[in-house]
């Protein structure tokens, strides 16, 4: 069965520190990869996605992620975090069901990021 692993459950950083959150998935076929963020009291928002093409994907708010197919990884990065980045971060993968059709998401367990001012 497909699965998504997020290595860090809780991360605490100071402002201006660099961030990298790990995400690995298990599936050998074509995948689409997503990072969602959930700010306190808010709904899930899409940070970025990888569908095809350039494996280095840039998202909103200065976030980026790199798809490394050989490592089945899609790590999220930000060079310099801010206090406002405090949130839950979820990695998700499209589980292929039927080619060309929209598919359910398989989720990692999330990483709780706290940025200290």
């Amino acid at each position, binding site marked *: 069965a497909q699965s998504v692993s997020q290595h860090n459950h809780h991360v605490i950083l100071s402002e201006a520190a660099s961030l990298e959150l790990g995400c690995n998935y298990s599936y050998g076929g*074509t995948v*689409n990869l*997503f990072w*969602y963020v959930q700010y306190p009291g*808010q*709904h*899930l*928002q*899409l940070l970025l*996605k990888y*569908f*095809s093409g350039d494996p280095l994907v840039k998202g909103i708010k200065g976030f980026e992620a790199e798809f490394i197919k050989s490592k089945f990884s899609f790590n999220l990065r930000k060079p310099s975090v801010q206090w406002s980045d405090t949130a*839950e971060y*979820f990695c*998700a993968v*499209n589980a*292929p*069901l039927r080619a*060309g*059709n*929209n*598919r*359910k*998401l*398989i*989720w990692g*367990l*999330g990483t709780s990021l706290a940025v200290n001012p």
Partner: protein
Amino acid sequence: GEEVAQTPKHLVRGEGQKAKLYCAPIKGHSYVFWYQQVLKNEFKFLISFQNENVFDETGMPKERFSAKCLPNSPCSLEIQATKLEDSAVYFCASSQGTLGGQPQHFGDGTRLSIL
């Protein structure tokens, strides 16, 4: 609308009672997904619809859970004879089109508390 609208925000039911949750997808989106988030972090896929048709129901518990998406009505998720373990936040998401890379847009969720 421009956002996925879920109602109610919080629903409290006694064990054994019925619970019904609603979701209005973003206008123009063809796909609706339901996810259950237990213990804050674990998302479990329940069911998806393409318009009013069930697209994938592999995550739905065989008993007690049912869902519908009827034309011109909000989608609904209904739980009969609720159990304590049904306590969770239920998220609805919608997306447009049939391309696999289309992102899912999420509602605020309904927090279901079973007492």
